[in-house]
């Protein structure tokens, strides 16, 4: 069987692992057992299990080739807005593989893992300092899990006060898409609040919804338009005045590090995305990590256990770290204590490496870079909420006098070896292209990216078909998204058919 197929365009494609299978090939040969062989009962055997049969080397080569088809942040520029898909420094990989972190188990006696607990306790303290909150749990497994945790805390707070009629969660239309889902999962009624013309929460619309049935508001600030809400303190006050709590979606915290502390603004509860702001890998490199910070009046409700100091230390003796349970805890949100090695150690390392001034630099360079690209593209693509942006901005992927769409522009970017930005989100911008360069990119990269987007706008006018049929320089051309979404059949094609798909 041939492994590589040349298509009409002489592009190399890769068969599926099932296509590479040949009966009888194996990867591993077991030694003869030194105990009597037991046969599986017939009732537990099946004849129709279509697992591929290959030698180890063929499996390795197949997946290595596939991995080369990938585009990653280690390969090139990755301007995915609202996700802060930032570069992950390689020193994090060294620290999270240190044997003392790697070869420990979460159920070990605490006396044997004091270093791990000290790291977690320190990280809790640092996240408190960075965010202005009174207490932090490291337990939630990811951002949306952190939201879920936070909303449970908000509900528990109201119930503890005998305030049982609160069922309504207010969510601006510029919020992250997970916010309504997190509230919905808890059974709350989600009420959408529109944005005003400058991309802020519409104050009048907010006031109209604020009553004694409001659990709170879930505020993404900066929001998914990349805008810092100009009335954030007023928004928070209006919600507090009707007895509601304010949830801050911390996914865009990258823009605020060292500049603004959400706790100081009056936000009551917020999740951190360590896999965004603190350079833990995500989007396939995960797992994520979504610690939650709360103001003092919610500290008793945090999930259990937290890492605490059981016995104070002194100059001679380190403190004894262990686990503590907050008084009115909502309970456990996850087996074990959060994504320790993958998330917490990496985030700890990232904070150590930057220090307070470095964290502030992150926010300032992230905001500077986004504003630079926005300035270069102004007049080339419409920018509906055109003011100083934070870490990201949203343009419309359309070009005057043409019918090209955001999707066409995104696909054409791939021909120039750039990862496309997030498109068609947020929903309140037509043909949205959401661009977040992050702080690590230098001016040369930003200029190349802006130059290419300007050139694509020219191409849209002179040769729109070039965009509509893009990408041309990639392993595969334009995928049929409609067919892929309507015909949910994943199957192995024969290689002859494969090249025609």
């Amino acid at each position, binding site marked *: 069987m041939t492994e590589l197929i040349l298509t009409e365009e002489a592009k190399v494609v890769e068969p599926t692992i099932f296509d590479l299978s040949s009966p009888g090939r194996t990867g591993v040969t077991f030694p003869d057992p030194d105990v009597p062989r037991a046969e599986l009962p017939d009732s537990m055997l099946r004849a129709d299990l279509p697992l591929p049969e290959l030698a180890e080397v063929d499996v390795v080569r197949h997946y290595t080739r596939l991995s080369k088809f990938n585009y990653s942040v280690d390969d090139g520029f990755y301007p995915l807005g609202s996700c802060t898909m930032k570069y992950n420094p390689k020193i994090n990989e060294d620290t999270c593989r240190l044997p003392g972190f790697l070869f420990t188990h979460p159920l070990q006696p605490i006396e044997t893992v004091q270093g791990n607990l000290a790291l977690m306790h320190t990280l809790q303290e640092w996240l408190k300092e960075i965010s202005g909150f009174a207490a932090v749990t490291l337990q939630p497994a990811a951002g949306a899990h952190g939201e879920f945790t936070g909303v449970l805390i908000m509900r528990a707070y109201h119930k503890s006060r005998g305030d049982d009629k609160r069922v309504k969660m207010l969510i601006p239309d510029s919020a992250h898409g997970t916010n309504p889902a997190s509230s919905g999962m808890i059974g709350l009624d989600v009420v959408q609040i529109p944005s005003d013309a400058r991309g802020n929460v519409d104050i009048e619309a907010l006031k109209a919804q604020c009553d004694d049935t409001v659990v709170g508001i879930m505020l993404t600030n900066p929001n998914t338009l990349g805008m810092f809400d100009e009335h954030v303190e007023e928004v928070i006050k209006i919600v507090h005045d009707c007895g509601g709590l304010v949830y801050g979606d911390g996914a865009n915290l990258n823009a605020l590090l060292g500049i603004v502390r959400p706790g100081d603004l009056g936000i009551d509860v917020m999740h951190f995305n360590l896999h965004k702001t603190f350079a833990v890998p995500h989007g396939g490199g995960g797992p994520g990590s979504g610690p939650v910070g709360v103001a003092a009046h919610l500290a008793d409700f945090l999930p259990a256990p937290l890492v605490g100091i059981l016995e104070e230390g002194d100059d001679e003796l380190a403190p004894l770290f262990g686990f503590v349970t907050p008084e009115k805890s909502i309970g456990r949100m996850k087996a074990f204590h959060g994504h320790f090695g993958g998330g917490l150690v990496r985030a700890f390392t990232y904070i150590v490496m930057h220090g307070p001034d470095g964290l502030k630099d992150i926010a300032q360079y992230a905001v500077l870079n986004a504003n630079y690209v926005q300035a270069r593209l102004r007049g080339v693509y419409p920018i509906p909420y055109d003011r100083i942006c934070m870490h990201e901005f949203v343009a419309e992927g359309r070009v005057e006098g043409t019918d090209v769409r955001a999707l066409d522009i995104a696909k054409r970017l791939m021909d120039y070896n750039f990862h496309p930005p997030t498109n*068609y*989100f947020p*929903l309140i911008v*037509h043909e949205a292209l959401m661009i977040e360069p992050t702080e690590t990119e230098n001016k040369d990269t930003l200029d190349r990216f802006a130059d290419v987007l300007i050139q694509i706008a020219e191409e849209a006018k002179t040769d729109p078909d070039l965009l509509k049929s893009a990408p041309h320089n990639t392993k595969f051309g334009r995928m049929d*998204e*409609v067919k892929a*979404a*309507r015909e949910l059949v994943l199957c192995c094609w024969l290689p002859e058919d494969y090249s025609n798909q």
Partner: protein
Amino acid sequence: MNAPANLKYTKSDEWFDPATGKMGLTDYAQGQLSDIVFVEILVEAGDAVEAGTAIASVESVKASAEIYASAGGSAVAVNESLADAPEVLNSDPYGAGWMVQLENGAPGEVMDAAAYEAYCAEREH
């Protein structure tokens, strides 16, 4: 875009036909969503439907959206065939793309075709 004069329209882009009691999503909405790939009708025949509540959920290659009842009343029929042919919402939103039919349907907050066309035009810019 197309907005037949005999129908009533909501700000959230649904239509209501006072003559037949049928409801669905507008041509403007299907154009904005682009290719629709999934439809789930959330009510069943016999259900009481309140205007403004969700009656269906649709997904396109761009986005997912809730479809709200443009009128209130008792559901007498739902269009089961949409589940297997969501593309009908793109090709025939006012005909074969109807979603729920009401008996004695009373329109919610609706406008006429001219007002709806003006409302859509305003949102284009």
